[in-house]
Structures are given as C-alpha cells and as structure tokens.
C-alpha cells in the first residue's frame, strides 16, 4: 500500500532553536497562520532558490516583513580553481580560470594572461590586443544581458528574461563563430590569442552590431518606462559612495553612486586609451540606476566593437618568441581542428629539434621568471585581477582571482537590512553576482 502525501505541503518540526518550517511557495498562508504572534522569524532562503541569482544562501531575520538582519552564506560552488592551477602549466591555467566567472569567461582569461605577460615581460602584438578588446566587449554585452534577464525574472518581469536571453543568444552564436565555443573559450592565451579570427568575421560582427542597435532600445520600451519595474527598483538597494569604497564595491554599483571609475579609462590596458567611449554614471545609487547603467554600457560596448574592427590590422596574433608561443599552427582537417599538416610534416620528417621543442613546450610548458604580478581589468561586474606568483617554474606557485562578485556580495546586507523582503531580491539582482566567480 503506497502512502500518498503532498510533497509540497508545509511541514514543521521542533528543534532546540524553535519550530522549523519548510515552506515551498504556495503554502505561505499555512505557515503564517501557525506562526501568528511570533515577532521574529528567521528565513533561510536558498541555496537552491530561483531568485537568489545562483547557489547563494541568504539567512534573513525578519520582523514582520522588514529585514532586520541579513547574512549571506557562500561556498556552494567552490571548485578549487586556484588550487588546480598550481598543478598545471601556465597555458593550461587559462582553461581553469575561464570557468570561474562563467558569464565573463573572456575577462577571466584576459586578466590571467595580462598578469602572466607582465611576469614574462612580454607585450602582445597589436592585433592580438585588439582581438581581446573586441571579444571582451562582445562578452560584456552578453553578461549585462544576463544580468537584465535574470534580474527581470527574479522580479517577475518574464518578458525581460525571454528578451534578454534571446539577445544573449546572438552574443553566444557570434562568440561560437569567432572562438569555436559559446562559453569557456580558452581562446586568449599567454602571449596573445590562440588563433586568428575566422574568415568573414567582419561581416558577422557588423551584422551583430546592427541587430543589437535595433534591439537594445527595446529594453527601454519594455522596462525603463514600466511603472511596476520602476516601483520595484527605484530607491531600492541604496548604497552611497562611501559605503561602496568601504566595502570594496566596484563596477556599475560604484558608478551608480556617482564615481566614474572604470579601469578601461583610469588605468588603460590593451590600448583602451585609444578608444572613444563614455563611462555612464548616475547619482541615485539605487537598483534602477544600475539597470540604466548596464543598458547604456551595452551601447558603449557596441561603439568600442566598431572601433576595434577599424583598428584591426593584419599581423601576428601571438608573440614571436618561440619559447612562449604555442608551437603548432592549427588548421581544420578532415577530422576537425588540429595541428596543421605542414607542422606535422616538419616535426615528424624534417627537424628533430622542432619535434623536441614542440614536445617540451606542450608537455612541460614555458618557464616564467620568479616574482609576482597583478593586473586589474574592468569586468562587467567591476575590478577583476589575477594575483600570480611564480617561483620560476613551469607552473604557477599561486593563482588568486580577485573576483568582483565575491567582493560586491559583501554589500548585500548593507543594501537589504531595513528594507522589505521583496527588496532583498531587487538589491541582490542589481549586484549581479555570479557564484562561479564568487566561489571559484
């Protein structure tokens, strides 16, 4: 005889801390009836909850509907990326760090590679730098679109979500065409990029820019003027400039408080000083301002993409130094991408030294002079940097990703406490944390 029970019914059990209720959504009323009279409720939200922006757990102490104390619990997506990097070559490290902040993989790769290159004392060729800028700005659009889409979903604006993800699909299609993969590209490598852009890249990118120019104003039509959207976001998640600085918050949140701090302009890297673009700021310091900034930043990224296309001159995409650059030239063969036939012919039939060199560089990797370096870049979420320490060997002694999601999340209690439960969601969405980067 099977027992039928409603898995979604509210259940409760007694503990030393008091009664613990399990509530799944439709049964709030039941719990509220039972707890009537209690002044203080502690809610555990997440780590699996559709509105916490990933595997993030919130412990909220409520008085009525007002949050009196918010505590964040992270670590559910810790994958040991930093530890793993210590066991792989400097080149292989790229494939690890790209998986940290999975919405901004090309930024992780660039931050890591810039630090490796500073340790090596090499500078990438112009074409490689421009390709990196181009890819990062395409990626920034994709990341901001997910921020809008998931933020919209969490607040119940489901068309915001479907539109955001539809637009982001354009980004992923383009990145797949350019780098071979939708995410986790490992396309940017120490010394440059792994290969040149494929034929026909310019038309594809220009078509993409045109599509995005057409569709981005749609967000203003759909959300900016929307009364509910404004009511949910305006004045919510307020964090003024001094709070941002004390808590180490960067990115659109810092700029929404009025400081035009964008590392692309204040500490330019990869030739960003040659691009003409604006850093939008606001002074409202609330969730709505952050939403507006993200939409505007996407338009600015489109400008940078167009300028990068103009700046692309033919040339090498990897440093000439044969001690660092990947030895093989890749090409498409009958069985997919692999070492080019000329390269195989050379190392197998003509030059023993080339074979030894290829083998050493591929298995052992290159050596990096001892020392430490840290090059910050502006990721969609703020300051991202890789602090790298080398002991002079072929593997890093230490890799530390300073991820903006990790730092910015610290500000969530300051934004949420004293507000309503529903505003916690809006504040959190405006922070746009990516737990892959936060927990690494």
């Amino acid at each position: 005889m099977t027992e039928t029970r409603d898995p979604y019914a509210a259940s409760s059990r007694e503990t030393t801390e008091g009664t613990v209720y399990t509530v799944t959504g439709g049964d709030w009323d039941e719990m509220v009836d039972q707890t009537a009279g209690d002044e203080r409720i502690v809610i555990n939200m997440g780590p699996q909850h559709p509105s916490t922006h990933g595997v993030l757990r919130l412990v909220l102490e409520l008085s009525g509907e007002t949050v009196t104390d918010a505590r964040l619990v992270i670590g559910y997506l810790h994958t040991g990326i930093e530890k793993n990097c210590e066991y792989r070559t400097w080149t292989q490290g790229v494939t690890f760090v790209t998986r940290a902040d999975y919405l901004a993989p090309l930024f992780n790769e660039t931050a890591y590679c810039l630090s490796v290159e500073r340790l090596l004392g090499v500078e990438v060729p112009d074409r490689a730098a421009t390709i990196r800028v181009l890819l990062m700005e395409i990626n920034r659009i994709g990341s901001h679109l997910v921020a809008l889409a998931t933020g919209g979903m969490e607040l119940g604006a489901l068309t915001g979500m479907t539109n955001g993800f539809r637009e982001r699909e354009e980004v992923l299609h383009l990145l797949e065409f350019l780098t071979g993969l939708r995410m986790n590209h490992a396309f940017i490598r120490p010394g440059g990029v792994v290969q040149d852009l494929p034929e026909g890249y310019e038309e594809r990118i220009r078509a993409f820019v045109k599509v995005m120019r057409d569709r981005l104003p749609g967000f203003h039509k759909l959300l900016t003027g929307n009364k509910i959207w404004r009511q949910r976001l305006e004045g919510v998640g307020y964090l003024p400039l001094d709070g941002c600085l004390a808590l180490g918050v960067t990115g659109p949140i810092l700029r929404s408080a009025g400081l035009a701090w964008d590392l692309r302009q204040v500490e330019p890297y990869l030739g960003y000083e040659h691009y003409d673009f604006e850093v939008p700021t606001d002074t409202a310091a609330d969730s709505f301002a952050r939403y507006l900034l993200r939409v505007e930043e996407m338009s600015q990224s489109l400008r940078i993409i167009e300028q990068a296309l103009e700046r692309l001159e033919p040339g090498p995409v990897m440093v000439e130094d044969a001690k660092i650059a990947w030895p093989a030239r890749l090409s498409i063969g009958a069985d997919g991408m692999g070492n080019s036939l000329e390269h195989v012919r050379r190392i197998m039939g003509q030059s023993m030294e080339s074979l030894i060199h290829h083998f050493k560089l591929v298995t052992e990797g290159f050596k990096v002079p001892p020392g430490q370096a840290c090059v910050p870049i502006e990721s969609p979420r703020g300051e991202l940097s890789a602090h790298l320490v080398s002991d002079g060997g072929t593997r890093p002694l230490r890799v530390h990703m300073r991820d903006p999601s990790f730092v910015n999340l610290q500000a969530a209690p300051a934004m949420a406490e004293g507000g309503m439960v529903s505003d916690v969601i809006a504040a959190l969405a405006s922070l746009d944390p990516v737990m892959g980067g936060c927990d690494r």
Partner: protein
Amino acid sequence: MSGDENKPKPPGTGAGGASGPTGASNPGSAGTAFGPQEIARRDVSGSTAGRAREGMFGIQGSGDTSGFGGLRLPGYAPAPAERPYGGWFDEVVDETTAALADDGAADFDTCVHQVTVDRGEMTWYVNREQLVRLARTLRDDPALRFEFCSGVSGVDYGEGVPQQLHVVTHLLSMTYRRRLRLEIALELDDARCPSLVEVYPTADWHERETWDMFGVVFEGHPSLTRILMPDDWNGHPQLKSYPLGGIPVEYHDAEIPPPDQRRAYT
C-alpha cells in the same frame, strides 16, 4: 600578539629567504610601459622554493620533462629596491615616512622592513605589529589616500622556505591612481596576523577566505569562520602540504587519487 619574539624576520636573509618578487629595480622605467626586465637571481643555493614533487613519469632526481615536473629550482629572495625607486614610488615612501613621524610611534623603517619594486609594482614587506597603524595612515593621510582595499589573500611558498606563509594586501588610491602591495611573512606554526577589518571593512570576507584556505588567524576579525569550505572541514586546502585530490568525497565513500597517482596510460 605582543612581544618581540613574533617580530618577523626580513625576507631575503639567510638561505632561501622568503620568496616573493625578486627585482632588479629599474628606476628609469618606473611609471612608464614596462618591457622585459632583467630578473636578478640571488645566490641562495641549498634551498628550494616550493615542494619537491615526483615527476609524471616516475622520474626522480633530475630535471623533468612533464607538466607535473618536480623541477627543483634554486630559491630566490626578493631583492630590496634602492633609491630612487622611480615614478611616484619615492613620493609615497617619503609621504608615509613623514606621516608616521608625526605621531611619534614607530617610524617607517620599523613598520616596513623592505621595499621592493618589481615589474612596475611596489611591494612593502610589513612588520605585522605595525600593519593596522600603517594601513590607517595610508588610508587617511591626505597625501596618500589609499582609500580602497582591493583584496587580501595568502601565498604559501612551500615547505623548507623560511616564513613560507605570506599575507598579501592590495591597496588602491583612487585619488592618486596608485596601487601598493603590503606583504606580511609568517611562520607556518605562528600564522597570526592582525585584521584589517577595522580600517577596510571589505577585508572581512577576504580574511575569512585566507583563514579558510591557508589557516592564517586574523586577530581582531569580527567572526573568523570558514567561507568557501564547509564549516566542519579539516585542513586548509591552499597550503602546499595539502594534496590536490585524494580527499574522501562526502556522501559517496569514493576517493579520487591525486593526479600524479592516477592511472597511467602506458
């Protein structure tokens, strides 16, 4: 934490020395684009930086050709930079010296026992007793204004290295657009460091992570608990003595061997 038995030794003394940036300071190029620099390797023979590992193909006692190379590298120590440091580096040191002299307590040389300039980045090796006071001065002095703490993390330089555990703090002055690295070298069995939370609230989670990953105790931290690993986890995973893999997996009674012990396809 008091008394001078805790006073850290300066890195770079003795065999091996604390590893860190080595650096030919290059005064002329500081503040401009940094091209390749000559890396001065100091003679610290007889010591290694990092743990000796067995090679991927079971090779021992030689230079190794695998990615897991047990290459035993000569130890090196970060070279102290000499005046002039170049660029704004001199100015920051001068201003800090003046600011620290104002209140009559320990002077700059007591607070910072070594200044290193390498690859265009400045690192101060700080005596831990003076860290909080130094950070407060750096933050508040109008001529310094390091108002932003970018992060705190740890580095383990491996067994056999004196003062193998380092706590690294990155500071940023948005006013002057300067970046400065503070580094504290610690012995593994005395891994205690003052907390910066009272000066930079953002250090809270960073220090919890450094405790979690390296076992550094930050004295004065409001709630130093684990942050990435589960609360009941044993050990500190980022230490070099902690293996990669080989940890029994909770709930599954399974174990994944470390990479150098996995099945070989030969």
